C-alpha cells in the first residue's frame, strides 16, 4: 500500500481527536442524548455543539431536537455516510499503525543481515 493511498483513506474531519471520539461513540449507539455524548467525550456543551455542527454539515451526524415532557432534548445519531467515513478512517489509521511494526521488522532483518 502506498503512502498516497493511506493518506487518501484518512478523513481530514476525523483527524480531530474530539470528532473521532464523538463518531466512535455514536457508532456504538443509536440516537444518543446530547448530555450522554458530552459526558462520555468529556467536553463542554459549547465545544460539543461546535463539533456536532461541523459533523452535521458534512452529513456525518443527524441531529434531532425535541422535548421529553417540558425538558428540551437533543439527540445525535451517526448517519450512514458518517459510518462509512469512520470505517475507512479507522482502516487507514490501522494501516499507519501497522506500518511502524513492519518498518521495525525490516530494520531488524537488515541489521541481522549485516
Amino acid at each position: 500500500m502506498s503512502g498516497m493511498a493511506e493518506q487518501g483513506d484518512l478523513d481530514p474531519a476525523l483527524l480531530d481527536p474530539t470528532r473521532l471520539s464523538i463518531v466512535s461513540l455514536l457508532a456504538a449507539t443509536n440516537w444518543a442524548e446530547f448530555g450522554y455524548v458530552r459526558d462520555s467525550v468529556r467536553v463542554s456543551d459549547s465545544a460539543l455543539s461546535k463539533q456536532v455542527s461541523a459533523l452535521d454539515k458534512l452529513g456525518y451526524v443527524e441531529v434531532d431536537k425535541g422535548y421529553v415532557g417540558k425538558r428540551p432534548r437533543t439527540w445525535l445519531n451517526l448517519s450512514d455516510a458518517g459510518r462509512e467515513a469512520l470505517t475507512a478512517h479507522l482502516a487507514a489509521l490501522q494501516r499507519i499503525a501497522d506500518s511502524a511494526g513492519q518498518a521495525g521488522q525490516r530494520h531488524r532483518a537488515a541489521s541481522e543481515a549485516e
Partner: protein
Amino acid sequence: MTGRPTPEEAAAALREAGDQHRAARSQPQPKWALVVVSVLILALGVTTDLDSWWRTPVTWLLALAVVLMAVAARSKRFGDLLGYRRALSRRPVLGAREERRKHLLLLLLAVLVAIGVQFGLRAAGVPFTATIASVLLVVLMVVWERLLGRGKDVRHG
C-alpha cells in the same frame, strides 16, 4: 493531529476510538432496569414455591418490564423517560445475525441451567426449588449482561 498522523498517533487514535466504542457498549441500560427484572424474577420464584395468588400478577409485571426494556427503550423519547440516556442501538456492532445468535444462546443457556437446577433439586427433595432457580437465573443474568456489554473492537465494526 492535523497532517498525516505518525504510527504512534494513529495507534493512540485507534485506542481512544476503541475505548469510546466499548464504553458505549458496556452500559446499554440503566442499572434500575436490571434491578427491577431481578426482583421480579426472584418474586416469581418465591410466589411459585408458595403457590401464591400473586404469581399471575408478578408474571405479567415481569413480561411488561421485559417488553418495556426490549421495545420501548428503542424510542428516543420514551427511552429518555425511562432513564436511558440513549436509545438502544438497532445497528449492533457485531452484525445483526451474530448479535441475535449471541442473545438467544445466552438466554437459552441461562434458562436451561435454571430449569435443570430446579428439576435436579426437586428430584433430590430440596425445598423451594423455584426460589433457588430464580436466584441462579438472576446471577446468570448479571454475567450475561456483562458478556453482552463486551463489544468487538470498533475497527471490526
